[in-house]
């Protein structure tokens, strides 16, 4: 299935959702990424990624309560699913595997 592929940005968003642990929604995810990664991210890119992740089943969502600074609009809160957890884990293991197999010389400190 095409949907199980995890892109680089998607992986970051997925991990961020995990880090935020229950308080992940569009604005908070963007803030977190901007702070930690020191890179500019647009809100629509975050939403798009979250939407894709949910479609692939890596995250699940529910509508939270409305607050005043949101103009009375509810926020959609995201949480990582078990399937999503496994997917990042697999991705990480795959990478570590690759790291292990890499000839040490190539990356030895000068």
């Amino acid at each position, binding site marked *: 299935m095409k949907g199980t592929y995890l892109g680089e940005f998607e992986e970051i968003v997925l991990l961020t959702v995990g880090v935020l642990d229950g308080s992940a929604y*569009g604005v908070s995810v963007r803030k977190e990424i901007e702070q930690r990664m020191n890179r500019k991210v*647009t*809100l*629509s890119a975050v*939403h798009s990624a979250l939407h894709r992740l949910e479609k692939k089943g890596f995250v699940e969502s529910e509508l939270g309560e409305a607050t005043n600074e949101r103009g009375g609009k509810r926020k959609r809160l995201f949480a990582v699913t078990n399937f999503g957890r496994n997917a990042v884990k697999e991705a990480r293991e795959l990478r570590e595997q690759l790291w292990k197999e890499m000839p040490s010389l190539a990356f030895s400190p000068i």
Partner: protein
Amino acid sequence: MSSSQSTILSQPPAWARKFLYWYCKPELAEEIDGDLMETFKENLKIRGVRSARFNYALDVIRFLRPFTLTRDLDTLTPNHFAMIKNYIVVAYRSLMRKIGFSLINIFGLSVGITCCLLIMMYVQYETSYDGFHTNGDNVYRIALDRIYPDREVSYAVTPHSFPPQMVEDFPEVKNETMFVSTRSNFSVTFRYGNKFFDEGNVLFADSSFFKLITAKMVAGDPKEALRGPNKLVLTESTARKYFGDEDPIGKSLETNPLGNQQQNTWLVTGVVKDFPENSHLTFDLIISNNTFQFLQNENWMGFSVFAYIELEDGTPPEVVEAKFPEMIKKYAAGQIQQATGQSFEEYTAAGHGYHYYLQSIKDIHLTSNLEAEIKPNSSWSYIYILLSIAAFILLIACINFMNLSTARSSERAKEVGLRKVLGSVKKLLIYQFLTESILLSMFSTILSLGLVYSLLPFFNILTGVELTLATYITPINVAIVVATAFLIGILAGFYPAFILSGFTPVAVLKGRIQNSKGGKYLRDGLVTFQFAISIVLISSTLIIYDQMNFISNKSLGFDSEQMLILDNTNQLNERGEVFREELLRNENITSAAFVGSIPGDVHPGFVAQLPGANETQVILSTVLDENALETLNIPIAKGRGFSRQFNDSLSMIINETALKTMGFEDPIGKRVGSQNPNDPEEIIFFTIVGVVNDYHFQSLHTDIGPLVFLHSSSAAGPQAPGVLNKIAMKVNGNMSETLLAIESQWNEFMPNSPFNYYFLDGRLQEFYNAEKASSRIFTVFTTLAIIIACVGLFGLAAYTASLKTKEIGIRKVLGASVIGIVVLLSKEFTKLILIALVIAVPTAYYGMDLWLQDFAYRININPTSFVLAGVIAILIGWITVSFQSLKAAVVNPVNSLRSE
């Protein structure tokens, strides 16, 4: 900055927000708007109003991404669309899965629909007759039921003095026109320079002709073209025949003197488009009739012209018809008294009567079948027969579909069960199966349109009419065809859909399905019905063939074989006898004689006044010379024939039927009086010199009537134009050589007249053209009906055989023979066909008896026709079924029993 302004400015731009809600999926809009709002408020604190508002707008635009725009089909389109799509997909799959059955269905349906379409086209053509006249709704032909004391004859021709009188006397009658047609009576030779042609399709019409009869005038004035003497109107193709590319207007054609007409040149004053075939009247040339002397004389009795009147808008014909009896009394009584010596009251009391009535011009083709019609007409009963054949064929094809679908229902039972478990309701399942049958019928219809296109030329030969597809492609017809295809789909699919959707899911999924007894009865009933129709059609075809054979082979009482008839011989005038003697020098011509009317011609009437009786009889008559009886081989029963040894100018010969109606004990020497046509005051007396055996001088549709012969020198003979206008000769030996010799002799005698000949037996067969055409059509459609029925039976037999595979295997293991098994499988169908036979025989007998009523001389319906039809049906059924049974019976039982 006022505080109200700052409140407005502390909001994101309203247009951007509206835009977001416009494009975004509703279920995402809330959260996105919320996030954007939160960001906006933060930006407001950090960067100020302008930047925050700008960023908000920018973000709204950035959210223009696929995931906010695309709407899923499932959630947003109407459910029906998806369902219909699904129906079509499932229908297609199930049709493809059993391609053989589908092909049988499609084949049957397409052939059925093709037959239907062809017949509908033909019917549409037949009902279109005379629909093109501008005032057609108000134009009527005057027809007559002539009542004699012992019989009644209906004529399409009527006395010519009535129509002008009607216009004068009745305010409802607006216009009238009348004409004489040469068709089937005689022909006129027209000449232009050195070109001459014999024209047998000439009208002698008056100047109001084009007021009532619509014809497209290409040149000339329709009001004036036929006004005045010696005018001529041609059709385009006739004009081309004589004048080529020259302009015909103002040129003249020449003829021999017509009747007592002095002048014989005809000035072309008009050209019309070729007259449509779908009219009860026809012409190639029209000449103005107002100088014919006989039309100037008063005539309230003799049937002379085709007369038409136009009524004022909205006048019911009955209103005018109601005034006819008074009119006849007022005008015709005098002439009747003069001619018969009886007063009108005495005459009607003796059982005579003239019943005039009106025929709508549009109805003539399908309702009128009178004496002296211009063209042979058709009838509604013929149209109904064709329509019912079309309906039957379609029904047979629909039944095939129903039978095959219900028979195979068990195969689809699991599908139905599963669909029901998953929440499908009965209504939706019915829709699904209907979609399948409608799809099938649509496909068949498309196929049959192609078939119609390619079969139309053959159909035209079959029916003898010229149909072209292009005239039928109208929006209404297309809509009708599509609607019919739809209807057929529903008709054929409704019952199977009802049955299939009725399965209870639990029973089906547990494997407890069986074809219901009721379903089997229905299937058997339908097969029986199909075969009953087939047997009716087969036996009807056989009986029609019998009758046609009977007619072709019936002894007519005279010799019609090898009898060559030469036309226009009246133009030979006094050289006639020399011409005849010259002919007899040819050794291949054994005898030759001049005649006025040959059997099959229209015979002129002879008004006979019998001795002692004060009433007259109109008896058909012909003039002939002293050789005619011998040449035509008509035996003399009593007395003598005409002879040169006597002066026969006042002699007459009668046939046996005339003898009976005259009631003479000893006819020879009796005197019969008749009015002198040239001097109405004088009565001429003829002496009966001989009696001939009856012979069929008219078609076998009518009984032999009374007939008198007058000699060619007779004083009272010349009534019709061109008296001895034919020469009949018996020809033997090499036909083409003889014909060449006769032609060269004709050209020697008559270099300016066309050589026009025909064979008598061929001409007589033309009387039965209508029956022959219908028997051909009948045969073709019968064959098709049987083929369709057999295709259905074939499919059903295949299915039954496949159900019984295991049974057959076990029977074979236990020692059954192949033949035994074939018989076993065929037995059931045989039973059905026998039941069909019982239903079909009385139906066919009744129908054919009705048909035979049209013939005065007809066969008794032969029971062997029915036996033969039954045997044919059973044989065809057996062959169809046994092909499948045999296939099932020869299979090695191991193969059918091994796998379970």
